[in-house]
């Protein structure tokens, strides 16, 4: 649960990771996030004055890692907001409202976790992998840390990551033991990450899929899991103004026709709640 105020955090480091930046914010007193939760971030100075006098509103980013009093974020420069954050130097200030949203709910059974990520969407899978390594999932939905401190047994964690090109594939370093594929064939299998996923499910379909990535990829994952009757949790994106349920701007249609706010009902949704993952429900990448 986020405190009721944004926090002014210092940039601890901003490192290049292939086509991405890994932004590390010192947040020694912030509440620990659950895997899949996100933050609303804005540079404290000169937020604005980019393309079209933007950004004005804060931007949503998955918390990629939480360790040593720092929150890590994986950023891709796609517009004025991410550009400004990507250029920040150590010691500069960032406003952060975090952690927000509902994260992954690890399946408590013995189904093996299949982590499927695309592009900068791999970020929340890193902290999920950390959590899965730390312990076994709890069933208690109100638990702050969804992972019990007991050592995990049973099936190993499988990580499947897809990237557009080799520069972006450097992002895979954020997770350990990942199988990587790429659209242009520069790294690993040439093709979508659902090729890898289909192969894994062929091998052993007793799995739970945790996926995050661009809408088209998520939709492919959703459709594949539906066909194979494999439970999946999808971390969605949407254009957001507030991140805490205030603006009703971040909705996605759910099965049955109602709209759900991604920031408070998600960003992680059970795939079963969605008819499909639509493109352009927010900032496409």
């Amino acid at each position, binding site marked *: *649960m*986020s*405190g*009721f*105020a*944004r926090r002014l955090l210092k940039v601890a480091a901003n490192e290049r990771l292939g086509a991405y930046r890994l932004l590390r914010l010192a947040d020694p007193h912030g509440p620990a996030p659950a895997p899949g939760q996100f933050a609303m971030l*804005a540079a404290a100075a000169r937020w*604005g004055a980019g393309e*079209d*006098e*933007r*950004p*004005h*509103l*804060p931007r949503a980013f998955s918390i990629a890692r939480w360790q040593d009093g720092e929150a890590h974020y994986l950023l891709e420069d796609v517009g004025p907001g991410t550009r400004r954050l990507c250029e920040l130097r150590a010691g500069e200030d960032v*406003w952060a*409202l975090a952690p*927000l949203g509902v994260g992954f709910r690890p399946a408590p059974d013995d189904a093996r976790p299949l982590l499927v990520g695309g592009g900068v969407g791999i970020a929340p899978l890193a902290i999920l992998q950390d959590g899965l390594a730390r312990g076994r999932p709890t069933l208690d939905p109100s638990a702050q840390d969804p992972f019990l401190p007991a050592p995990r047994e049973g099936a190993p964690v499988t990580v499947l990551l897809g990237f557009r090109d080799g520069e972006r594939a450097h992002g895979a370093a954020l997770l350990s033991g990942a199988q990587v594929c790429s659209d242009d064939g520069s790294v690993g299998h040439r093709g979508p990450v659902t090729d890898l996923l289909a192969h894994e499910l062929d091998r052993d379909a007793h799995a739970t899929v945790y996926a995050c990535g661009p809408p088209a990829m998520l939709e492919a994952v959703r459709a594949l899991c539906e066909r194979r009757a494999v439970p999946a949790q999808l971390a969605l994106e*949407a*254009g*957001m*103004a*507030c991140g*805490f*349920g*205030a*603006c*009703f*701007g*971040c*909705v*996605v*249609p759910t099965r049955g*026709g*109602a*709209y759900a*706010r991604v920031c*408070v009902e998600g960003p992680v949704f059970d795939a079963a709640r969605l008819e499909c993952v*639509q493109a*352009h*429900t*927010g900032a496409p990448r």
Partner: protein
Amino acid sequence: MSAEGRGHDRPDGERSSPSQRPDGAPSAVSFCGLRLAHPIVNASGTFDALAALAVFGEDLRTEFPFAAFVSKTITLAPRAGNPPPRLWEAPAGLINSIGLPNRGLEGYLEHDLPALAALLAAHGARPAVPLITNVMGSTAAEIATLLAACEERPEIAAVELNVSCPNVRTGLDIGADPAQLQAVLEQTRGHLRKPLIVKLTPNTADVAACAHAAQQGGADAISLINTLRARAPAPRGPAGAPRAWLGGGTGGLSGPAIRLVALAQVAAAAARVSIPVIGMGGVQSARHARALLDAGASLVAVGTESFRDPTAASRIARELAEGRA
């Protein structure tokens, strides 16, 4: 029914009584007979207090940022709202095409109202926060039903009537035409004894005339400005054909971009009426709030800035009280 002599207490020559306390404690304001801890409220539709309670927990209750809480617009029937995308970031602002999603009058009264009342009740040193329910109807009959229902519920301290609703025949906002506005109010005002705030539309040739019509029609206060009609540029698809970005086609512009349009409209409206005015539009700081108060507003509402900083209203109220504006 006319507003003259209606019982909101008001010292001579002043529309409200915000005074500046050098110790920085926000000083109480009286508005339409309601006692508010300070002059800052939220703009309708820009803060979901129940969602915020779930996100922020008990801190929200103890540090509730608004001196009165204004609900988002409630309509008679439930509305799903517009299809996404609903947001477009504009130069120094935001265009929204939310489409007034709400569970409808019945759902609101049954589910939201008790929960809101519990949240807003006096809590420790914090006095109770009055609840203002914002409603919209597309006909006089609808509006009358909404007002009557609000009259019955003690949790509701006052009603804000959103008149930015398109007239089904003309397609124009009901509130854009002074004569039509006054007529609708005269037909419906009798259904509510509580204070009625009329939220004017800014998309009009003469907002002062609309303000005056609202007063003549029986409003106890007016609030402005609502969002300016605007449109997001259509991204061009690969085929080169532009497609609409916002699910709702056009949308409404809010935030700093509209601040000085709001100031002009608030000043023009306040100069024309003798009832109190809630000013809003792009307020981000105590200085901006002060400009609206100087222009004749009694209260100031904070909208889009709460998206950037959920405690913006507290900050603004504190800085106003400290005279830092």
